[in-house]
């Protein structure tokens, strides 16, 4: 009988999710940005919820405090928290979890260790030792327990995620010239996090809060391959990626896809000047590829909660500096969002609320709001929606199709 109920729940869960309204499914991410009052995190949360979105993603760790610049020595007023759970006690972080307007909070979070200059994200550039493993397990367990006790009676979802495993693989490979070490470290690290989350869930079986552990990747068709002296993403058959070399060896509740490879340009040409409507074709193809690759890696919990729809979009966005010259951000964003929703991705997170700082030639201008706190005016027809913000507002009120109709795509 119990198995039948479990099966029924597993079958019905995707139906419930597919009916998940756009405001719960769509969210905003905030990472580093120039300072804002009262702080970047609170300002981004307010911006997200005032727009009517109920999903918000943030970083919870030792390197950035949403008040000082990234890695600033005075972050957290010089008292960098030793664990993610301790960081969550800082009022501006706790306020995110307590905000009744948010139904899903995604925490990009890492365990911390002291390597000489105070707490820092656990170092994956060296063999993942017992010391790192124990710290990650204990700190993710502590964070999970805190979430399940303090917020356990709330009907929310909290997702613990890493940031783009492929970037980490590439970073380790470049640092060590040892791709096998890179894959082994990420496998061990992710499995340790999953075990901690599963242990915490087992300790609190009757809570309303849904605690999920997601594994984030960013490479689907490309591979990380050595080009000259460095490892880089390349359209090669040789090489490795999280999809091919990590995913088959881990267990997670959910897969998060940081979708730039699909949406920015065809991976074969890497030319961003391609028709916006083709983004949907590429994203559909890649989401299906990820689903197939991850099928054996999803936990029982993930299967019961998400059925076959266990791939979310953890990051998605278009740099104004690149795409406004190529016909516009708005049509591209529309086709990407439409494809993600049609593919029933349980969450789609836009990068990001406020523009990041400029740094050299890196792609810039992803923000829903610019440095003047204005919604940047984008290429649009005379009577259409002319910014990401207004297009989202229209879509929340009238459905995503209204965006297409308004702007006559």
């Amino acid at each position, binding site marked *: 009988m119990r198995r039948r109920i479990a099966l029924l729940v597993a079958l019905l869960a995707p139906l419930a999710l597919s009916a998940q309204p756009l405001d719960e499914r769509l969210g905003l991410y905030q990472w580093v940005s120039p300072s804002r009052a009262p702080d970047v995190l609170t300002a981004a949360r307010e911006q997200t919820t005032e727009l009517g979105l109920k999903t918000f993603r943030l970083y919870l760790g030792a390197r950035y405090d949403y008040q000082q610049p990234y890695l600033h*020595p005075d972050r957290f007023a010089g008292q960098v928290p030793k664990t993610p759970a301790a960081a969550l006690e800082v009022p501006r972080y706790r306020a995110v979890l307590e905000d009744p307007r948010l139904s899903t909070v995604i925490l990009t979070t890492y365990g911390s260790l002291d390597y*000489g200059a105070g707490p*820092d994200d656990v170092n994956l550039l*060296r063999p993942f030792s017992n010391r790192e493993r124990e710290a990650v397990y204990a700190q993710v367990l502590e964070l999970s327990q805190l979430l399940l006790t303090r917020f356990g009676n709330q009907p929310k979802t909290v997702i613990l995620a890493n940031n783009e495993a492929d970037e980490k693989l590439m970073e380790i490979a*470049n640092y*060590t010239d040892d791709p096998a070490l890179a894959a082994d470290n990420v496998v061990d690290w992710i499995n340790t996090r999953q075990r901690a989350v599963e242990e915490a869930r087992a300790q609190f079986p009757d809570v309303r809060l849904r605690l999920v552990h997601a594994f984030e990747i960013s490479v689907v068709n490309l591979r990380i391959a050595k080009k000259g002296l460095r490892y880089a993403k390349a359209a090669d058959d040789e090489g490795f990626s999280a999809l091919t070399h990590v995913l088959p060896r881990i267990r997670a509740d959910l897969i998060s896809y940081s979708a730039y490879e699909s949406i920015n340009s065809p991976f074969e040409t890497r030319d961003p000047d391609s028709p916006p409507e083709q983004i949907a074709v590429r994203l559909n193809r890649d989401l299906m590829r990820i689903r197939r690759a991850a099928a054996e890696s999803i936990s029982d919990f993930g299967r019961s909660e998400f059925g076959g729809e266990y791939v979310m979009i953890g990051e998605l966005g278009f740099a104004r500096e690149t795409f406004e010259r190529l016909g516009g951000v708005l049509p591209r964003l529309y086709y990407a969002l439409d494809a993600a929703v049609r593919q029933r991705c349980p969450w789609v997170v836009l990068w990001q609320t406020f523009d990041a700082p400029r*740094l050299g030639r890196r792609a810039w201008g992803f923000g829903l709001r610019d440095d003047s706190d204005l919604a940047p005016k984008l290429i649009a027809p005379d009577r259409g929606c002319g910014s990401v913000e207004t297009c989202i507002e229209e879509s929340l009120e009238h459905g995503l199709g209204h965006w297409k109709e308004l702007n006559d795509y």
Partner: protein
Amino acid sequence: MIRVAAMSLLLALGCGSPRQTRLDQVHDLVQSPDYAAESVLWLRALGIPATEAACAGKLSQLLQQESEEPGGDCRYRIDGPAAEAVLVSRNQYERLPEIQGLLDTEALEAYVLWSERPERVGFERTPEGLRIDADLGPNDLILARVAFDEGWSSDVPLSADPIGYTLIAPEHPGRRTIELRRSTPQPTPPLWSQSEIPRILPEGVAQPGQGYLVIYGERFMPGLSSAIVDDVELPGVYSSANQLNVQLPAETTPGIHQLRVKTPGAVSRPIEIEVLP
């Protein structure tokens, strides 16, 4: 202004008098109206957190403006991780190219990729010099952003990195405290060459027809660039600032060859190309 910032940085790190000559060159580069990307690379390489420059000038499109100063300049933030001392890769260090000059962007980019690490280690100024507290992995070195030519001694090997900062190379991994004491100053390094060094872009060589190469890159000189395949110099059939077309000699055998681009006064780093049959 950059000179002030860089000197302040070095003085703040307790280095005494900074290496004037090369810093002067960087200062002049940043203050010039040209070479915006190169200027930002140098600021990042030096680990300078902020600088002041003209508000509508070349840096305004590449760096975050932090504030407007009373004199009409703007303060720009260089938002990269740039602590006084960080862990860096031993493996990558061994493959870093030598910086051939002030405008050697290829080598500078490699340096920034290597040095701009977030893994800080403990750094403290002491009456005798510096104290570093670090937990090292098997592939870690320590980059201390203090000028090597000021002269340091320690019980671990020290050397100058490609821009002249101090590299500490403990022989064993693990947690340790390292003392650096002021010692005999080293000779000041010579000025950087100011030549515009040509660069072949990664995957920037096409072979559209038999024996014909199209080379894409930066800092080629229109009408004055040539290619060197192995040791044979080939004149350009066509050359612009970013493209050079050459005809290979008929006797060039199919297979792997070394290619460089030569301009008056400079030669690019070699890359390997496969000449098709």
